[in-house]
C-alpha cells in the first residue's frame, strides 16, 4: 500500500518544495525556479499515472505485450514546451522590473512603491 503510492508522495514533496520557494523567497528569479520545480513535479505525477506494469514505451515493437499509456505523454510534451514559453516571459518581466526599480528583491520593490 505505502510503496504503491511512493511516487505520488515524492511528487507532493517536490510540489510543496517548489511552492515553499515561491511564497518564501523574495528574489523574483528564485521564485521562477520554484515555479519550475512545481511544474516538473506535476509532469512526474502524470507520467507516473501513465505507467503500466510490464509495459514498454508506446512505440510498436514485436513481442511487446503491453504499452504504457501514450495520452499523459502527449499532454506533458505540450506542457513542457508551454512551460518554457511562460518561463521566458516571466524572466523577461523580471528584467524589466530590474530596469524600472533597480532591484529584483520583492521587499525592496515594495519599499519603493510605498515611498512613491
Amino acid at each position, binding site marked *: 500500500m505505502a510503496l*504503491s*503510492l*511512493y511516487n*505520488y*508522495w*515524492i511528487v*507532493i*514533496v517536490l*510540489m510543496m*518544495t517548489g*511552492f*515553499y520557494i515561491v*511564497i*518564501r*523567497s*523574495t*528574489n523574483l*528569479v*528564485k521564485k*521562477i*525556479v520554484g515555479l519550475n520545480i512545481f511544474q*516538473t513535479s506535476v*509532469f*512526474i505525477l502524470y*507520467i*507516473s*499515472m501513465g*505507467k*503500466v*506494469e510490464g*509495459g514498454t*514505451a*508506446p512505440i*510498436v*515493437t514485436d513481442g511487446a505485450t503491453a*504499452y*504504457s*499509456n*501514450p*495520452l*499523459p*505523454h*502527449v499532454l506533458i*510534451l505540450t506542457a*513542457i*514546451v*508551454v*512551460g*518554457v*514559453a*511562460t*518561463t521566458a*516571459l516571466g*524572466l*523577461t*518581466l*523580471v*528584467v*524589466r522590473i530590474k530596469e524600472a526599480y533597480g532591484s529584483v528583491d520583492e*521587499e525592496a520593490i515594495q519599499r519603493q512603491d510605498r515611498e512613491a
Partner: protein
Amino acid sequence: MLLGFLVVIAIAIVRLRNLVAVIMLTGIYSLHAALFFVALDAVDVAFTEAAVGAGISTVLMLATLGLVGHEESRPSSRAWLPLAVVLVTGGALVFATLDMPRFGDPDAPIHRHVAPRYIIDSPRETGLPNMVTSVLASYRGYDTLGETVVIFTAGVGVLLLLGGRRRDDEEQE
C-alpha cells in the same frame, strides 16, 4: 532512487543563496527528471525535458542573471508561516492520494478509456509506429497548433518587452 535524488536537489535549491548555483542545480534537476521519464517508458517526454527543460530554460535563466545580478538577500520575515501553509497543503494532498489506484496498475481508470483506442488503432490508421507522435500530430493536431500559437504569443511578448526598452533609450538620448 532517482526520485530521492530529485528531492535532495530540490532541498539544496531551497537552501542555496547563490543564484548561479541554484540555476545549475535546476538544470541537473531537469536532467534527473528526464532520466526518470525514461525509466517510466516516456521516451518522447524525456528527450523534450532534456533538451528544453535542462537546455533552453537554463540558458534563459543564466542570461537573465547576467542582467539582474546573482546574490539573493535573506528575507526579513519569519519562515514559520510559509512552512505552515506548505505543510497543511501537503498533508491535504497526501490524504487525497490515498484513493489513487496502485502505481502501474493496468486496470486503473486512466488505462480503460480512450487510451486503448489509440494503442490498438493508431498504428493502422496513421501508419506511424510511435503512438505519442500520431496522437500529437494527427488526432490532436489542432491542440498542437494551439500550442505553437502560445509559443508565438510568448515570443512576441518577450520581443515587445525587451524591444520597447531599446527605443525608449534612443529617445532619451
